């Protein structure tokens, strides 16, 4: 059988890959993709803990469902922001979005 540690190490790796994407990508949509990878890693972690240790309770499942919903809300609003900025300024590169710089 698969030990819990495999799932944990895998989701850590996926989280770190996503983190690299968030930190290193220039394109704002690329950054959002990195966030999606991180959220997936978190979800996998939650579901693994639920499945191995706490399957009698429903907390884990509800948490996973809420993470799904939050992720989709985040993507919807985030992409809408990017498109809105793109429409005004014609840029999608996060480094160049400097309107609010003091």
């Amino acid at each position, binding site marked *: 059988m698969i030990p819990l540690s495999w799932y944990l190490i895998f989701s850590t790796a996926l989280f770190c890959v996503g983190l690299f994407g968030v930190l290193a990508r220039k394109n704002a949509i690329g950054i959002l993709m990195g966030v999606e990878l991180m959220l997936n890693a978190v979800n996998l972690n939650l579901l693994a803990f639920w499945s191995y240790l706490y399957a009698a309770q429903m907390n884990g499942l509800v948490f996973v469902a809420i993470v799904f919903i939050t992720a*989709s809300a985040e993507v919807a609003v985030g992409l809408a922001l990017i*498109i809105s900025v793109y429409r005004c300024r014609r840029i999608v590169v996060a480094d160049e979005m400097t309107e609010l710089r003091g």
Partner: protein
Amino acid sequence: MLNDWLYIGIFAGISIFLPAAAITIAGILGPRKPDLLKNSIYECGIETVGTTWVQFKAQYYVYTLVFLIFDVETILLYPWAVAYHQMLLFGVIEGVIFILILLGGLLYTWRKGALEWV
């Protein structure tokens, strides 16, 4: 144990294999004589102009957005529907409120004029 996932995995493998095999066999049977003119892009009989990446309307984005919201709602709506028979009237009313809030979102989008194709 994982029997149904095993079956679905096997079925997925076969349903990818069948069309792939058919396409490969046809590729072996058919002739292969490419030339420059034959391989050019077909666009109604005129030469292609510019890149393929023409700008799209934002309307596509809006439809996808509304779809995303209604698709995500299935995560909570389907478990609610499955548990329907074991639920008191209170639970059913909870689900109805859930749907009403989403209906409100749809009506807002409608009033905002975001559902018009033009």
